[in-house]
């Protein structure tokens, strides 16, 4: 009783899914970091202390 194909398929799909997930998280992080840098370059900063700088 050997069903190697099923075993291979399940490990393959598992690997594929996990790798895709990792890649997605990584790419997402990189894109966000880029956007933050671009905004920073455009001179837009976060207002961390809202009360302080009216005008």
């Amino acid at each position, binding site marked *: 009783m050997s069903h190697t194909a099923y075993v291979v398929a399940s490990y393959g799909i598992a690997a594929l899914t996990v790798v895709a997930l990792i890649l997605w998280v990584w790419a997402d992080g990189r894109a966000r970091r880029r956007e933050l840098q671009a905004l920073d370059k455009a001179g837009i900063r976060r207002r961390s202390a*809202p009360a302080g700088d*009216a*005008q």
Partner: protein
Amino acid sequence: MRLRVEGLSAKRGEDLIFHGISVVLDAGEALVVTGPNGSGKSTLLRVLAGLLVAESGSVRVEGASPDIGHPRELCHYLGHRNAMKRELTVMENLSFWKSFMGDSAGGSGIDVEAATEALGLGGISHLPFGYLSAGQQRRMAMAKLLVAHRPVWILDEPTAALDASADRLFAGLVERHLGAGGIVVAATHQPLGVDARELRMTGFAGEMV
């Protein structure tokens, strides 16, 4: 009756639009909110009307009957959108709002025909709302202010589509409401035609002029 706004601030998404706005309006007083595009006038009005949650600060109505749950129940809000159904006739629209809204204590709304008369559009209330011109639609939306009594009117660019005579007509309605001890807060780019204090939004905090 007195509308007291204290240290109000509000957010859109993650960031503050304005903060620390305090105003006290007595019965019969009007406040005009001015400022450049995007400075937060509409946001302020929506907070006053209880449609947006304030980040901090409070809006209170003093001297109203104590069984009022929330100040918004004493307010009319006329936003950019008219809150009327295109498929229903003006009459159907207005009488729905009249019976749905009911009257606040201390006054009573006039009836639908009289309200359309007061806005200079008597006799066309049998038309579907969608058949009216932009200015006529706006005027019919204003008739809502009259059919149900509310002491506080909050108006966002009320006169945008109105012609000169309707402008005057509307100023008259506002005067009358103020004269009867009402309170009006309006955001406009053009002068409203009534005596009013001015709150200038400058982008981050408002300042009284």
